[in-house]
């Protein structure tokens, strides 16, 4: 009976408690990262560290929650780890192929100096939702992406 009670408690923690708590933490972290996007590098790093720390207990949900890996990827970008960010975005895309994830992946790939992969990712985002192209920060890259989509 003790074993059964322990199994039930563990199941309740992973299936019920953690998803709810992590949803609240992801929401808070994403808001903080969005607010920091226009701030200085120091503000971005502080927001990224806070996000990484608050989501440390949520990694077990990465297979089912694309938002979690999206936040992780954005935090890693702010911390200057584009390779880690690219990995996180790929894991998010394994759960849900959303245009904003492709755009974020493209930005991380640009930071990792992988321009051709970034063009592919931006094209995937822009073909789905042309409004996403406005978020590409470089005019020459945007022009190349538009050309790729037209092709």
């Amino acid at each position, binding site marked *: *009976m003790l074993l*059964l*009670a322990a*199994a*039930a408690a563990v*199941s*309740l923690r992973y*299936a*019920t*408690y953690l*998803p*709810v708590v992590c*949803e*609240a933490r*992801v*929401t*808070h972290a*994403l808001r903080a990262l969005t607010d920091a996007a226009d701030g200085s590098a120091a503000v971005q790093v502080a927001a990224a560290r806070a996000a990484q720390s608050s989501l440390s207990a949520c990694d077990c949900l990465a*297979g*089912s929650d694309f*938002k979690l890996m999206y936040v992780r990827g954005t935090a890693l970008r702010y911390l200057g780890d584009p390779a880690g960010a690219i990995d996180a975005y790929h894991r998010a895309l*394994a*759960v*849900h*192929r*959303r*245009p904003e994830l492709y755009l974020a992946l493209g930005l991380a790939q640009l930071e990792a100096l992988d321009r051709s992969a970034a063009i592919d990712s931006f094209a*995937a985002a822009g*073909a*789905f*939702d*042309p*409004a*996403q192209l406005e978020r590409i920060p470089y005019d020459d890259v945007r022009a190349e992406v538009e050309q790729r989509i037209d092709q």
Partner: protein
Amino acid sequence: MKTSSLILAVVLLGTICIPLAVLPQGFDAFRLPKVATLRAEVILIAAIFVGALVLRPRRDDERPPAGRRGRQHWLPKAERTPLAISAVRAQTSAAGHAGPPEAPGRSPLVAAVPVACVALAWMAIATLVSTNPAVSSWRLAAGVSTLIVFIATLRVAVGGRAYLALVALPLLAAAFNAAVVILQELNVWMPFGTRPDVRHHLQCTAFIGNPNEVGSYLAVAALVCMAAAFADAARRRWFAAGAALLVAGLVASQTLTAFAAFIAGMIALFALVSWKHALRVALIAGLAAIVLVATVAPLRQRAGQMAKQLRTGRYNAFMTDRLTPFAAASLMAIDRPLTGVGPGTFGWNYHPYKLRAEERFPDLRKAWSRGVNFGVVHNDHLQVLAEGGAVGYALFLACIATLGAISLRRGAADLPPPQRFAFFLALPLAVLWLVLSLAQFPLETVVVRMLIVHFAALCAAWRPS
């Protein structure tokens, strides 16, 4: 406390908690908390069941083997007449060995569970061959959870036990939500605050999620309340009053498909009494709909918009820009007609299929929702066909047909209230489910799915012989 009483308590708690669970500080403020609550319910049911198995005293020498046949084997072969078997059941029940007496006829478990189990087995096969098995496995887990709650509800309800609690508690939660959505529409009480950048109607979510989900949920609840009013003469006033509140909430949600599904269910309900009644109801419903559209300003505006869209050939706008997910789901079904793309993977596959749909039908690029990443089709018929293939869709229809078939008997005058309730609810609920699935997604929304599953289980448990 007996195991069945504990499971009954958990089932009742689930019917109350799922429609009320929210997480205001989360992005997914409504769906995730309800999913989490369902998982908690299933874990508790499983723990109680396994705990009862562990703690059950071994009395093999006194008790017959479990199951219906086992109880019959308890009797000498020559004495296995129906009367003797009934007498034995009554004895075992009185001795606390075998739960409440069952309704005559086939066991409800034998009658209803196989179809659901075959559907789940097909879901498992479709998960194995899915385009994304990892995502599909989460949906399979949700299917297992739903089946566990269905069987638990069915088992605790057998014999008409806890009739009033099992029927009324989910309706109380629905009545609360109906009251909240009415207050929200009237701008009297906004429990989750207001956002100036979002249209007021879209913020009228009650504790359910969005106006469409509120409408689907209240349509099911209102129909159940009407069926209860038909079945239970002693409490007819209470159920009729509840139905009035739920219908008011349904109107407040302004969900046309839900309203149409409710009307279709009501016509089926009256058809169970007499076809003349059904025709009269159809006529009255038509007139009431005209009066509602003419007098309620938002409905009048929407009807005017729809007429204009039809006249100008803007069919996608007429269908609130849902043709793109419809086309994407159809392309998925054409690509994998037998097994589909896999349970729960429509959202994951939407990106490439949406691009293909837009290539094929360029007008779809003009939709205002072009940038929206649809996670569900907004049509459960197409969703099941796309994700589960033709076999999955046939099983979906078989589940609905099995439910509707419960009402196929002559008359209900001589039945006790639980059986009358099952008789009056089963077919209308099946009709409502079919119609609602044309432009909504009851299977994809936990709160609506679990309400349908709860009452489908009660119909199976209390099915008239």
